[in-house]
Structure formats: C-alpha cells, structure tokens
C-alpha cells in the first residue's frame, strides 16, 4: 500500500515538472536562428532537396557516425548473448505453402523497395535508416517463411564492415578535398532535384542504409532460433 503511494507521488512529481516545462511553451510561428541558417543556405551548400537528409548526412554527420557505431555495439552484444543453438525438441508444424510462395515474391520486392528508398533519400522522404529498416523487415519475413534457412552471418558481417569503412573513408576524403569531415562537395553538386545530384550524399546514404540494414538483420537473425528441417 505504502509502495503504491510512493509510486503515485513519483508520478505526480514527474507530472508537475513536465507541466512546468510545458507552461513556457507557446507555439512557434517562425524558425529559430539555426534552422533558418540550415533552410536558407542548405540547398546551395549541399544540393539536397530533402533538408532533413542534408542535416543528417552533412551538418550533423558526426552524430550519424556515432549512432551507427551504437547500433554496431548493440548488434555485437546481442550476438554475444544469443548464441543460436540447434533446436533439440520436436520440429514444429510445416510452414504453409502459401506463405513460402508469397515470400518468394515479396522478399525481393521488399529489399528492392528498401534500396529505392535509400537511393532517393536526398529527393523524397526516406533515407538510409528507413531503407535499412525496410530491408531488415524483408529479412524478418524471409526468416518467418523459411525457419530453417541457413543465413550466413559472415556475409552480413562483411557487408556491414565494408559499408562502415567506406562511410568513414568518404568522410576523411572530405577533409582533404573539401571543407571538412563528411563534406559532400567532393563530387559535383549537379542539377538540383535530379537523381545524380547533391554530391556525395546519395553514396553516403547508400552506405548508411546497407550498414543499418545489415545490423538490424543481424539483430533479428540472432533473436530468431534456427529450427530443424521437417
């Protein structure tokens, strides 16, 4: 009883703090100074139509690098904890044939859609993280349809390492050939709004997408337990 009272007191305290924070909020009608700089000089400097992409890949590119590193650490720890052991008890029921046939059509389509999303990240909504998540979803569908699939963690590791390495290499190239780390103007900016534009942003986003997709697929693949063939 006294425990519940303490819980409610904690909750009320948090609510009062939050209400104090919210009381100073009045809906903003114009951009702040930083945002104004990004909006006004972003299209000329980076050439990306999607300003969120411009902020993620170039202005705050170092954050993205750290974020991808966090994901890598998470995938490594989960791989350490979830060593897949061969299943001992009796195999489950057979997977429905409709699902396997559908998955044969849907899995490549899903992966292709993920690739489309991260290639077009600088023009339309989407980007490396979304595309990587969609690729991992396709991977999860594949694991659901073929539970005894022999997925090669080695290939995933290679894709992840190579894309992460290339991401850093492009960033370092920016120091020598352009203004700074992860500067995208090492390639010509091109026509604003076309597919081959915005300098190195599409290439960096492709690498981010491959890396995020490989890491999330690694997480899903380690949570999944391989089953015996029926």
């Amino acid at each position, binding site marked *: 009883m006294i425990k*519940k009272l303490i*819980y409610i007191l*904690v*909750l009320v305290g*948090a*609510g009062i703090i*939050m*209400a104090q924070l*919210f009381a100073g*909020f009045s*809906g*903003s*009608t*114009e*951009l*702040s100074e*930083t*945002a*104004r700089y*990004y*909006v*006004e000089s972003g*299209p*000329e400097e980076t050439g990306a*139509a*999607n*300003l*969120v992409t*411009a*902020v*993620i890949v170039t202005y*705050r590119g170092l*954050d*993205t690098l750290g*974020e991808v590193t*966090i*994901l890598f650490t*998470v*995938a490594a*720890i*989960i791989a350490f*904890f*979830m060593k897949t052991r061969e299943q001992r008890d009796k195999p489950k029921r057979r997977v429905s044939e409709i699902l396997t046939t559908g998955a044969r059509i849907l899995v490549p389509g899903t992966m292709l859609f993920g690739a489309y999303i991260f290639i077009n990240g600088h023009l*339309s*909504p989407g*980007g490396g*993280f979304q595309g990587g*998540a969609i690729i991992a979803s396709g991977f999860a569908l594949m694991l659901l349809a073929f539970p005894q699939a022999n997925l090669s963690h080695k290939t995933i590791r290679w894709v992840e390492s190579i894309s992460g390495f290339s991401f850093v290499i492009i960033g370092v190239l920016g120091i020598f050939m352009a203004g700074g780390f992860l500067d995208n103007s090492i390639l010509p900016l091109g026509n*604003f*709004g076309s597919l081959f534009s915005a300098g190195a942003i599409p290439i960096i986003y492709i690498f981010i997408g491959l890396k*995020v997709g490989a890491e*999330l697929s690694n*997480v899903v693949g380690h*949570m999944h337990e391989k089953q015996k063939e029926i």
Partner: protein
Amino acid sequence: MEIFQLEYITLITGGLLVLTGLWGIISQKNLIRMVIGFSLFDTGLHVIMISIGYIRNGTAPILDKAVDKVNAAGQIVDPLPQALVLTAIVIGLGVTALMLAYVVRLHKEKGSLNITNFKDLKW
C-alpha cells in the same frame, strides 16, 4: 481558443504518454512489461520533440515544385528536431532489443520474469 491548436494537443499527448510509460516502468513487476513501458516513454519523448519543432501551418521540409528555394524559410517546419528524432528512433530500437536480450538471459538464469526474484545485488 488558444490551447486548441495542433502542437498543443500533440505536446500534451506526448507528455501523458511519457507519464504512462513511467507508471508502467515503476509499477509493473513483469520485466517485459517494464520494457514496454520504456518503449512507450520513448514514443512520448519523440512526439514532444516533433511538436516543439512544428511551425504553425508549415509544410514538410522538402523542397519541390510547391516549395521553392527562395521563400522556403517562411513555409516549412524546423528540420533539426526531425533529424534528431530520426536517429533517436533507431537508437531506441537498439536499446529495446538490448533490453530484451538481457531479459531472455535473466530468465535463463533464474527461470522467472518477476523483478522481485532478482535479489542478488540487494543488500
């Protein structure tokens, strides 16, 4: 009416979601329900951050035919919180997966999901 605006409503929704998640974390005994509380807390924080970056009657921060370069600054919403939330969501998934891996491991050691059974570090 001043309070009946889009950003106020989403801000209050996010705040209540944060409180609900906090209540789930501190009051539940089941480990998986605590992880669910964490993910609700995450969602609430993201909603709060996005609604702070909203500009009234703004459009999405993507330049195309409707929004040109010259007077974009007066039309679009703040792109900075969106970029932050985008990375935060992905990290949130990583943290959730990590917590679930720990939960599975703890259950393997003790055979229970109840938080009161884990007394190894209690003094």
